[in-house]
């Protein structure tokens, strides 16, 4: 019982927020962050799409190894890895249970393993990109690849507003707790407590949305006064924003190295 309680106290919103911000912005020291964002995004595009069309175990396993290596290079926080593993096990695990239920046997685990590999490759590639580059670089990269300025701005603003939202969410949640009634008895495995907190988490979204809507009034006005919509229509502004992007030798090396490795895999598989 004490174990469960300890677990509960570990998972605090502060901690989740801290980990998320570290994942997003704590990448300045990662070796991948020195790569040009456009190259990394193109690289990601390949690993996000191609695995779905592959069926060779060798190729998939090879890709998995590569993305696992880049994930390590991106210095991801352990928290994200834990979430990923939970997600994968949960996703594929219940499929396996379901297949057993419908008369499958251990043999049905094999295609599921393949699915797991595909999912892992894609997820690890995503983590590499989103953890290895800070949102500013991603947003610049997207802009450079021709996406509208509003999308790339939303991405970086989304991260900027994240701590504010967390803060607000914590307050709303606290407000519910200060004026609410927690279960008298925790119940078996603290299920009553878990249900209580889950309910609060859900209910807290409504006030959060209203508060956000209210604060965004100022934000939108302020964007106007600081020439944001003017800048979106202004090609000079975009050029200036992206002038710091350079494709260097290490970018070429990174891309061609990956290409050679993938070609080798296909040749083997």
């Amino acid at each position, binding site marked *: 019982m004490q174990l469960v309680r300890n677990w509960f106290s570990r998972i605090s919103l502060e901690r989740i927020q801290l980990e998320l*911000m570290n994942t997003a912005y704590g990448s300045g020291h990662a070796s991948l962050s020195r790569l040009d964002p456009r190259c990394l995004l193109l690289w990601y595009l390949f690993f996000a799409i191609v695995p779905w069309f592959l069926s060779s175990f060798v190729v998939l396993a090879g890709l998995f190894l590569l993305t696992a290596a880049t994930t390590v290079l991106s210095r991801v926080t352990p928290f994200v890895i834990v979430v990923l593993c939970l997600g994968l096990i949960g996703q594929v695990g219940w499929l396996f249970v379901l297949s057993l239920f419908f008369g499958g046997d251990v043999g049905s685990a094999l295609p599921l393993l393949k699915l797991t590999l595909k999912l892992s490759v894609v997820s690890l590639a995503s983590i590499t990109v989103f953890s290895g580059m800070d949102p500013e670089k991603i947003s610049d990269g997207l802009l450079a690849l021709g996406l509208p300025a509003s999308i790339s701005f939303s991405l970086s603003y989304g991260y900027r507003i994240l701590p504010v939202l967390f803060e607000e969410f914590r307050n*709303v949640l606290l407000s519910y707790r200060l004026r609410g*009634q927690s279960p008298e008895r925790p119940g078996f495995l603290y299920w009553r407590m878990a249900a209580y907190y889950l309910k609060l988490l859900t209910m807290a979204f409504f*006030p959060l949305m209203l508060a956000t809507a209210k604060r965004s009034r100022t*934000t939108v006005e*302020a964007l*106007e*006064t*600081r020439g944001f919509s003017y800048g979106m229509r202004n090609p000079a502004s975009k050029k200036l924003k992206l002038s710091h992007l350079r494709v260097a030798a290490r970018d070429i090396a990174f891309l061609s190295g990956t290409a050679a490795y993938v070609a080798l895999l296909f040749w083997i598989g």
Partner: protein
Amino acid sequence: MSKPISPSSPALSSSSSSPSSLSSQFSLSSPSSASSLAASAAPSAGEFAVRVSNVTFAYPGSEQPVLREASLAIRKGSFAAIAGGNGCGKSTLCKLFNGLIPHYYSGEFSGSVEVCGRPAEGRGVAELSRQVGYVYQDFDNQLVRPTVLDEAVFAPLNYGLPEYRAMGQRALELCGISHLHDRYVWELSGGQKHLLALAGALALEPDVLVVDEPVSQLDPRHARQAYEVLRRLNRQHGITIIVIEHHTEFIADYCEEVCLMEQGRVLWQLPAAEALNRLADLDRLGIQPPEVTQAAAKLSELLGKPSAASSYPVTADDAEAYFGAILRRRAAETGSPGKEAGGGASAGEAPPSNPSPAIEFRRTELSYRTVRKEKREVLRGLDLALNEGERIALVGNNGAGKSSLLKLIAGIARPTGGDVRVLGEDAKGLSVERISARIAYVFQNPEDMFIEDTVYKEVAYCLKRRRYPQAEETAERMLRAFRLEPLRDRDARLLSGGQQRRVSLAIGAAIRPEIILLDEPTANLDLATREELIGTLKELEAHVRTVVIATHDMQLVRQWATRVVVLNEGVVAGDGAPADVFADADLIRRAGLAPTQIMDLSARLGLKPACASPAELAGRIYGMLAHGKENDSHAARPQLV
């Protein structure tokens, strides 16, 4: 959008004369000096930073115009304040300057606006914003970039200016925050964020800077810091500063002229000292004149010679000279004014021999982990006992641990060392829900407390949830007690600041807690609402026995508290009756407190203990004049007032 634009030359003559004609129409005295400002500012259109002529504007979908024939002319290089009660159109007026009205809000518009000598008509927000920077009241929502430097270069980058980096860095330097350039915005304190919002607006090197209520969201020290930056920008860089402000003491110290607005009109535009002497107008609009001005007015009332064309002092410096002169006039017949010591016992109403205090801290420590994984100590071995029936004010500068202390009592934070005992129990073992049944915690920002969609439901939520008997009757009674009945079906988020504060207090008081904790209850309130809040606090005593307030507001402390606890760097630096604590000048300085004007003046005039209110100061000086020296009966009298 209808915009009957008056041609510029007739507009010039009409607008330059309008402030003076309006003032002579409304004011009781000295029309001649009112027109002198307008006359000196009249000559050419090029000398005006902004000029508004007969603007009437209604927001889309609203029948009532927010601005009604508003006219105003602010000289280039001026430092002007726009004052007025809540909802009188101050912010709306300022949004004319950068074209947000009528370009962004396209309501019913008539009249004309000129910015830096050129008509604003036909120039969009983007173009006007290069000349007019705007800093919002809720400046936190204005910051859209992750790091400080990114934020500073945001505007020049949008305009595609190649030297954007230098511009941003210069703006940061002007605001004195260039050392923070690589920090993330969410790591900054409130004061630093405000300076960053200023820098963001300055990066485009505007001619005019509009700052909406800089004081309301900042503690007094940071507010003064922000004003010092504005003064430097104004004096050294020639930027025209327009602040929306109703804190008259800041107006007196920093502004050159004041425009007073009432119901969408500009009532008058006068030099600051003169404007702040229009006591009748200010009083009618719920704006409190500087404390020293009130004291001077009170004194001349006591002396039986209230002057119509008054010229009372508005700053502490002026007041020192003014009262000093009055006292010196009598000095021949008297010795030096009596400087009696102490007198603090009068305020200590709390039973000192309480065996078990309501709240007790024993060597309490609290530390946080920051984003950069550093440990930050907030409380370092704090010992404190708070007794039942006390009105306790926690004071101290930002980061001294006031809010943390309240959170420990409410069970929201857990001590990392030592003990916290609330109402005889160890707080460590109690959940937030358990503690909150006996101790109510009211947030600094009322909006964070709102979880329902009507005021009635907000107040009743806890009562119903916790199945209090007669929940409905209690909720009704609370609505009556806090004068919320007319607002019962409104959404609390859409109420004014003062109304929101009342709702939050009603929520706190509804469950009849034994202790209520208030975090900065007067922050963000205009002065009329503030006065009202002090009344509400007294009302609260009918329901709650012990009240603890964390505050920066020394006026509130002087008027309300029976005990002051000064926190500094995580420990108790001072503890006692307000008079005693404020008499300790060294402590005040060390703890970074901002004394009120009256406390400051009392010290300069050598009055001990310091006076609590303008009326007290006036009474004591009157006593000194009448009896030759200050005696005890006069010192004690105001505490009964």
